[in-house]
């Protein structure tokens, strides 16, 4: 009786995890803002590690935690800054900051 309760709760946990991951992956692939996609990718790595744990592969979850959350996120963030520097004005970090930046670059060009 106790085992049935535990396994039904774990199945509910898995269903919630899979639905959250599908929702997140849809927004990650369909967004146009690159910074938003990077942050969603970091969150997706975290949920992917939880999914590996639930698939009884803790070693893969350890690698996913170290690579997905620890290394790939900062690498993407620094790559984003270099991209921002080379192609200025093509990407928007967000609207408020970008408005000030456009104004500044216009002043510099003038």
């Amino acid at each position: 009786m106790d085992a049935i309760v535990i396994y039904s709760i774990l199945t509910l946990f898995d269903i919630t995890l899979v639905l959250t991951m599908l929702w997140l992956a849809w927004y990650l692939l369909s967004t146009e803002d690159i910074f938003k996609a990077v942050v969603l990718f970091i969150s997706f790595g975290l949920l992917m590690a939880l999914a590996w744990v639930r698939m009884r592969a803790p070693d893969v979850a350890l690698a996913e935690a170290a690579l997905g959350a620890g290394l790939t996120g900062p690498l993407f963030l620094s790559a984003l800054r270099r991209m921002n520097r080379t192609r200025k004005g093509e990407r928007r970090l967000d609207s408020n900051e970008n408005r000030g930046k456009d104004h500044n670059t216009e002043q510099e060009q003038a």
Partner: protein
Amino acid sequence: MSWIHIIFALILLPAIATGMFRILRGPTAADRMMTAQLFGTCGVAILLLLSAGMNNPVLLDIALVFALLAALATVTFVSRTWRDNNKNNHGNLIQ
């Protein structure tokens, strides 16, 4: 196997799904990064509760790795991605 830990892990999991709204509509870039950091802490708590619930002490090591690398993304964001505009504004103020 104890069901109370797994129930609390199940309660904590929709907090991650709810916080997604702030990533999707956050006005500044720092709001999105803060949400990612809250997800990291929630993930650590879920891993700790699952390791008690599934009787698997290996999950503590995964939580340890998450806790070690949690600050890395935010520090990189502040020092690299967000600083770029800041220098521009400051230079313009001086000009």
